[in-house]
Every structure is written in structure tokens, then in C-alpha cells.
């Protein structure tokens, strides 16, 4: 029995301890916003926040998530009406095409901007490596800069 905190709630999982966190989230908790793309840590579609840091969940056995705090795309924003600045930027720039990779892109970017609130293009290239098969990278880059501006504005307003 593994217990962990997902999106603010305590959950318990009593299946096989080698089950990747991704499948616990998707199949057992019904949190399908986190996607499966490769299963080997290559694409980033499964990115969640694990103890506050972006983490690909497809290779992380749930046993390693014991007592961890996990946030998924469903709980990234404070509430339904107030989007996280990264989500807002993604909407403003109209980033998604098929949209399948975008939860992972957004989770990766949200963590990245926490660590680097005003990134350069080189910083983006170094840090963001999630795959987008539709090729939305041009707009992702624009949206990362835009999100950084929105986040700075938000923290100034606070």
C-alpha cells in the first residue's frame, strides 16, 4: 500500500508497486490529462510536478512516490476561473494543434519558469525538451516568453 498526495488529496494505491506513476494517475485515479507518449522518458507527455519539480511519470514506479506530493495538469491552476500564467499564455498564443503533448509542455514550462523567471531563447533550448509531433515549437517559444511576462506581472500585482 502506497500513500501519496495527488492534487492536494491523500490517495492510496494498493496495486503492484512497480506500476509507473503515470498509470496510477490515469487508470486508477482517472486523471487522464497526463498523457502516455513513449513510456521511456523520451517525450515528456507524462510530465507532472513531483515534490514541486517537473518529472516524467512514465518510468517512475509508484513505490518511489511514497509520501510524495504530485500535481497534475488538472490542478495546475488555482481554480477553474484563474488559469496559471503558462496556461493563459498557451491560450493567448494559440499553441496547441492536436494538443496531445501540451499538458506535458505546460507542466515542464511552469516548473522551468519557477527556476528561471526570465529565460533567454538559449535557456529555453537547454531546458525544454518535450516532443511535439505536430511541431508547435515556434509558438511554444513565444508562449514561454509571454508566460514569463504574465507571471512577472502577477507577482508584481500581488
Amino acid at each position, binding site marked *: 500500500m502506497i500513500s501519496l498526495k495527488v492534487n492536494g488529496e491523500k490517495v492510496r494505491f494498493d496495486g503492484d508497486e512497480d506500476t509507473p506513476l503515470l*498509470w496510477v494517475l490515469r*487508470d486508477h485515479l482517472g486523471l487522464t*490529462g497526463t498523457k502516455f507518449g513513449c513510456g521511456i522518458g523520451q517525450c515528456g507527455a507524462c510530465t507532472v510536478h513531483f515534490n514541486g519539480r517537473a518529472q516524467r511519470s512514465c518510468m517512475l514506479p509508484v513505490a518511489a512516490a511514497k509520501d510524495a506530493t504530485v500535481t497534475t495538469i488538472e490542478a495546475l491552476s488555482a481554480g477553474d476561473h484563474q488559469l496559471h500564467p503558462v496556461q493563459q499564455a498557451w*491560450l493567448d498564443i494559440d499553441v496547441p*494543434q492536436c494538443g*496531445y503533448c501540451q499538458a506535458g509542455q505546460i507542466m515542464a514550462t511552469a516548473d522551468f519558469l519557477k527556476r528561471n523567471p526570465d529565460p533567454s531563447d538559449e535557456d529555453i533550448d537547454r531546458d525544454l*525538451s518535450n516532443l511535439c509531433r505536430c511541431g508547435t515549437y515556434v509558438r511554444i*517559444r513565444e508562449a514561454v516568453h509571454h508566460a514569463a511576462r504574465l507571471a512577472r506581472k502577477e507577482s508584481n500585482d500581488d
Partner: protein
Amino acid sequence: MTRTLLQLSRRQFLVGGATMAGGFVVGLPLGLGADPTVGNGGTIGFFVEILGNGKVVIGSNQPEIGQGVRTALPMLVAEELDVAWEDVSVRPMPLGIVKTADGYTWKYGGQGVGGSTGLTNNWTYMREVGAMARHQLLRAAAEKFKVSLDDCSTSRGHVFCQSHKRAIPYAELAGAAAALDMPDEAPPLKAIADYRIVGKKQKTVDARDIVTGKATYGIDTQVEGMRYAVIARCPILNGRVRSFDDADARKVNGVLDVFKIDGPMPGEPYIILASGVAVVADSTWSAIKGRRALKIEWEPGPNADDSSTRFWQENEAALETNGQVVTDDGEFDNAMASADKIITHRYRVPFVSHAPLEPQNCFAHVTENHCRIIAPTQMPSGASRAANAVTGIPRENIEVEFTRVGGGFGRRLSNDYVAEAALISKQTGWPIKLQWTREDDMQHDFYRPGGLHELRAGVDADGNVTAWTQRLASASKHYRRPNKPDDGLWEPELYPDDFPRRIVENFRLEYFHNAIGLPRGSWRAPAHTANAFVIQSFIDEIAHETGQDPLQLRLAMFGEERELPYDGHGGPTFNPGRLTRLTKFVAKEINYDRKRPAGTGVGIAAHFTFGGYAAHAIEVTVDKNGELRIDRIVAAIDCGFAVHPQAVQAQLQGGTIDGLSTALGLEITVTDGRVDQSNFHDYPLMRIADVPVEFETHILPYDDIPTGVGEMGIPSAAPALTNAIFAATGRRIRDLPLGAQLKSM
């Protein structure tokens, strides 16, 4: 005469006699919460529902694969209906299959997206849907106020009655409007100049759900009592299950059932792709673990010795012989014999995989005489056919819902995963979600056919191209299909009317089919990806070898505006002058004439794809270690009229990246009858760091007729890249993908 709504609906509904007649036009209420009485909203036709609060729900009848069709088509309806886009929400529709006396018909029109036709096939239809609904609302208002139709006009969800000086919300008229008989002819459509919604930036449908993780794809399907399935498919092309031992698999926690899936016999048309063993469990992970515990002995079959090395050697050898001449214009042999100079080069275009980011999956629930399918498919009618083929359940009893799709690229024109899911559900009686892993997807695809192209041109003393031939040895994608004769194998591989046919009068195309066990299918912009690469590379080579500037030679050959006949998909005509305009534009934008330092160069290419036109100018730098950097990309598209400009821009950006990603690093190879690649570590798609910051996309409007946009951005990207590499280094890349070739300079 223009096709009217009623003619369309009659053709669709009178096929089977009277029962369905007029179904579309009178609008069967869909029972979606609106009571069709005055003041309470109502449903007008299948596509338009007006809610009591004035909001409008528009049905989306086509699969959304990221091309934006779920936004673009409802925009057309909303435009003609005359409502505010902010008031519109979009409801996905299921497959509208209806049985008739002599077959099936489709009550929501044809449903399926491929060949960049999602918009063009529905351009008139969807505008007529909106216009007809608006017309009925006007009539309802005229009757209510006992005035003539001319006395009424609409604006943003209201009918204005001039003589009574009153505005009535659509919601108050919708019930009455829904009850009116439809007129015989579709009302006139708006002029493009009057558009408020179409052709302008609009909020994308589902965007908010996507960024909050609420949008659901096939893979997200969860149904009460559902079980999870995976299949261990034979890794050897055309191999089969000989025997298997499932003792350990059945011991895995959560595994519920294990059984064999009979694949197609070698040579048989594909309903499913491969023979294998299915594992059904109570979760995806248990199914995957159960599969790992299987011990399967494979029957190697006829392709167990297949190898890419041999396939490419055979292609080289084939080009030394004579192939099937499929096009032969003018006096080819004479023109070649009298040419001042003959230039010949061979180009290799590899097999590639679709690799949509959402791996294949499908939900199926088969009961005695009913089947429910939920699938991420580009071709819902094919899903219905696939489920019918393996269950025998009549198609009118097969419900097909189709979700947002995590990437199509042509892979989901095939519905093999639907057939598999239906088989497993039939065998177990359970509702099943079949899940493919990435490895399954990469190793069991309908790959883009690989081919070796020989291009030869005869050039006169002034540098004019007087004779041209393209000779292709490839594995045709039309093999293994019913009713396809062998002498038609060339058809999906060479598009005879592509440039420079009719521009070079003495013109010959020759085809050689070569066998390999890899399944083949349609990969985004199918043969255009190969044709643009070889033709646009070869033009560059001719220019360099005859002392001409490649841009000038290209422009001279494209020439002025004129319509040339084009028989293939995208026709009936091709106007090479539209390529001239785009080519000049991208050349100017990238400052083609500027002197650049050694190691830096610009390449240009343009191509006509399925009715639309695109051009690329790319600047690259290659350092002394052979390290390539793409400095700048300028892409331009002429899609006639851009209905949904953000989607056009996105498709041009994404198509360019797809073209470059594929040219830079992607290839599927075979060793000992097995696909060598298995996941993104050995099939390295481009990442953000590989995409230059300087990346411009331009939409050049042309006329009032929209073309598709899903595929146009790809074909000219690869040759613009390799032409740029040549300009930078003097090294000609004739072999895709680029891989490490520049490292060995």
C-alpha cells in the same frame, strides 16, 4: 448550377426510400436538452441547436487531428447563421451511418479527413447549413409578425423586423423555425467581403480544455466495467504465432485473459496488421506486464530474411533495367539524344513512420448484435467497416464515436486497431480499451514507402531543359489491396502531372515495383514528400551544372500564371505561376542575393500539393566539424482563401517542422525481417532546440476559393534544406535522412 442543400440531402436520403426523406432538412430534434418550443430554443437541422439562453451549439462532423477542423467548419456555420463566435460551442458528432435499400448513406455528410480535404469537402456544405438555419429563423420571424421576408434581417443572434422596429433573439424563434419545412434551394451565401468570423482570428475550439487537461482523446476513454488490453504482435514482418505459453502471464496480478489473434495471411489485405497474442487485464500496466511474461514462438514466414540493405541494392539494380513507362510526352528519346548536356542523379527517400504522439488505441464493446466503438480515427466510416469485418455485426448496429485525435499524419486512415479492439471485446464479452505502446506503434505501422529515384535531364546550349525523366524504384503502397492490378502499382508513387510536366515537353516517367514485407500507407502529403525533394533538388543541380542561378532557373521554369491540366488529387488544374509568386516572395524575404560568409548558404524550393501551393527559403550554416545549424526559415503558403488563419499558420509551421524533422534524422530500416527502430530514442524527432528562433510564416491570399492546408507545408521544406546545405558547403545531399553525412566531409 451550384449544388444546393436540398439536392445534397435528397441524394443522401432518398436512396433508401421515403423513411429518411427530408430527415436532414426538417431537422430531427436531437434531444440535447432543448425543448423545441417557442422561447425555449430548438434544433434546426442536424448541425444547429439554439439554446434557450441564446447560446448556439454547432455540430462538428469531422475528426479533429490538430488541423483545426473542429474550429474552421463551425466558423463557416456561425458566419452564415449570423451569430457571435463567443456564443458558439461545438459538439462533436458521431458517425451518421444510415442503412438504405442498397447500401449505406451518411446523414451528416461524408465524415473523414485525409488528403487535406476536411475543409474543402465541407466548405459549401457547412456554409449552406448555416445559411439554411438563418433562413428558417427569418421565415419564422416573418410569420410571427405577419410581414414579408424582406422586412426581416439578422444580426448576431437576432432577427430584426423593420416595420415593427423589433429585435427578436433567435432563441425565441428557433422552435418555430425548426418546425418549418425546408425550402428546395439553399439561400444565397454571403460574399467573402462581408465576413465577420471567417478569415479572421477566432478562439480555437477546445483550446481551454487542452491547456487544463480536460480535453479527451481516444486514450482517455473510461467506461464502466472496462478492461484493458494489449497485444504482443509478431515482430517479424508477415510472421505468425506458432505457439505460446501463457502460464506466467496469467500469474501476473490483474491479468484476466490471454488468447491468440489471427493476423492476415501474407499477401492478404490488411484488416489488422499482424498475428499476435492478446492480454486482457484490469489495468493498462497489468496488461503490459502480462505481455512481458508471455513466451511466444513465432513462425518466421516469407519475409524473415528481408533487409533494408538488400531492398536498396535491388532498387539500384532495377534502375539499370527498363521499367513500366507510365507517362511519355513528346519525343523523349530524340530530345535526349539531341541534348547538349545530359545530367543524371539518383536520390533516396527512406521509409518513415507516422509516430503520432498518441499511440493507437480503441475502445470497443461488442454485445450480441450491437457494437460501440470509441476511436481516435481519421476515417470513422472505416472504423465501422473494420468492426463489421471482424464481428459480423451489421454496420447500422455499430455506433462509432470519434474523439479528438493526438495526431493523424495519415496513420489513422487505417482502422486496424479498431478491428483488434472489436475482436478482443467479442472474444471476452467485455468492454475493452486496447492500448498500443510506442514500440507497438513504431514497429507496426503503414510506413511511407521508401524509393530510389533517378532523375535525368537533357539541357540545350542555352541552359533550357528540353527533356526530363523520373525513374522510380519503390515499394508501392497499393500492394496487398483488393482490386488493384499490378500495372497500377505506380499510381500512388508518381504523380504524373507534378511540375515540370507540360513545362518540359519531352517528359517520361518510369516505375519499378520492389517488394519488401513492410506494410505501407499514406504518410502526410504521401508521394509529394518524395517528389518535391527529388525534383526541387534536381532543378538546383541542373542550375549549378549549367552555370545558372538556381532561383532564376526555377522561376524561369515555373513561369507566368496559367492553368495546366492536373488529373490527380488537387486538380483539375495546377497554376505554376502561383509557385513563381511564392518563390519570389520567400527569396526576397530571406535576402537571397546577399553575399554570405563561407559555410553559410540559402536554399529555395516550392511545390504544389493537393491543390495548395507553398515555398520555403532556408538559411543554414555548417561549421568545419560538419555541425549543421538552421539559421532561418521563411515559409509561405498560398491556400487561396484562408478560412481559419491561425490554423493555416500552425499547419505551415508544423508542416515545415515535420518536413525538416524527417529529412534530418528519420528512417525506418529492417534487419532480418524486423523493424530496427522502436521508440523516440532511435527515431529522433526534432525538439525545440533544433528549431531556429528566426522562423517566419506568411499566408499569401490568392482568390476566394480555400484549398486544404494540412499537407502543403511539408514537401518543399526538405529540398530547401538540402539546397541550402549545398549552397553552404558544396555538398549535395541525395540520400535522406541527412543523419551524420556532413560529419564525413
